[in-house]
Each structure stands twice: as C-alpha cells, then as structure tokens.
C-alpha cells in the first residue's frame, strides 16, 4: 500500500515529526511504500540543515534525509509556508525540496492513505 504523510509541526517542539518518522519506518518494514512526505505549517522547519541538536539527542532532520535516501522518499516542503518562515533552497538538508501545495493534494488523490501528524 502507498501511504502519504503530512507533517504540520517543526522538530523538537512537538512529537509529531518523531511519531511520523517511526510510523514511516514501521510501514516500510511491513512492505508498504512512502512515496512522499509533505511538510506544512511549522513542519517546514524539519527541512533545514542548519540545526545542531546536542550529541546525545536524535537529529530529526538527518533521520528524515537518511530514510529518504534509503527508500526513495520525496521530502517536499511547502513553498508558501517555507518562505513565510525563512526556509530557502540553500538551507535544505539532503533529500528535501521546496514545491507547491499541489504536491500535497496529489498525495491525497494518488495514494491509498494520507496520515496527518501535527499538534
């Protein structure tokens, strides 16, 4: 089955991105595919490579980049939400790209399920 994931909150402040990541990993382990994750609202803050969490903490952004590279996940950051919050192409971590809200709607149209994680 194809699952789309929508993440509406930034890393660390909320558990949303952590839960979404663990859900995505479990889905892949069960043989499902996650073709795309869409980042909206403050969720766009998951995409910046400028974050430097302490050594003993998880790196939420790096974890998404790695999962995306291993399993071909398209990490899409909403352009309007990103521009509002100062997220630009040159700040993006590997695997992330900036695009329009149409990419979110397509997930709803094309995939079997769309699961939202937020506040």
């Amino acid at each position: 089955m194809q699952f789309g994931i929508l993440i509406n909150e930034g890393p660390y402040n909320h558990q949303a991105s952590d839960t979404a990541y663990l859900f995505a990993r479990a889905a892949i382990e069960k043989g499902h595919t996650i073709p795309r994750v869409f980042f909206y609202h403050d969720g766009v803050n998951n995409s910046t490579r400028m974050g430097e969490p302490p050594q003993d903490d998880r790196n939420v952004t790096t974890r998404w980049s790695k999962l995306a590279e291993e399993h071909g996940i398209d990490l899409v950051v909403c352009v309007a939400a990103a521009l509002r919050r100062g997220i630009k192409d040159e700040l993006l971590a590997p695997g992330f790209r900036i695009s329009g809200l149409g990419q979110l709607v397509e997930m709803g149209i094309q995939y079997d399920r769309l699961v939202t994680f937020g506040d």
Partner: protein
Amino acid sequence: MSDMDMEDDGSGIVKKFMFLNRKAPHGTVYALEGLEVVLITAAFDQDVSLVFTDDGVYQLMKGIDTKGIEVKDFSKTYRALDGYDIEKLYVDQTSLDARGLTEDDLIVDVSVLSDDEMKNLMDEQDVVISF
C-alpha cells in the same frame, strides 16, 4: 479533460476530500494556511467538503475586524469560495450551540448538520485533512 486553467495530476481520479476546520482564527496559523490547501484542492477538480466544527465555527463570524491586531483578514475568502466551485460548507449544530451562535452569525451560507449527519459525512470521505 480539465479546463486549461485547471490543475491536473493526470490520473482523472476524483476523490472526496473533507477539510475539517477545528481551530479559531488568528490565535494560530492553521485556519489561514488550511484555507490555502482548500483552494488548491478545488483547482484539482476534486469533490471538496469544508467542515467547521468546534472552535472552527469562529472562523465564519460576521463582523471580523483584524485591523487592530495587524493581521490579514481572510474571512472574506470564505465568501468567494463558490468562485472556486466549493459549495459544500457545513457546520454542526452542537458546535454552534456550545458557543451561543446561530446560522445568522455566520458570513456564509452553510448546511447545519446534526452529529449523526456529520458522522456519516465524515465516514464517506476518501481523504480527511484536519486543520
């Protein structure tokens, strides 16, 4: 085929999308950014239902004036929704009652649903996105 100005993912699939607005405007950004998703979805020629429940009904208040807080008043956009072919607007009676509101307090025409009608509407959707 879709019109030239219509977005199209190429699949020709039309799904039932419900947008469930449960938050008041201005205190957080969800109502405003949620509305942007609704408009884009309509451009993809999908079957869109827009639901306002819980504090989401406050988004539709008549007489909203945001000048004093210096933020955009997006409530006018709700009145332009039929221009986007979004005609299915719903609120639930329980949420209105809990806030001392009636249909007359709202800036747009909506269908007022009972809890049972709302349950059934939600169940028949293909995609539910909540803001």
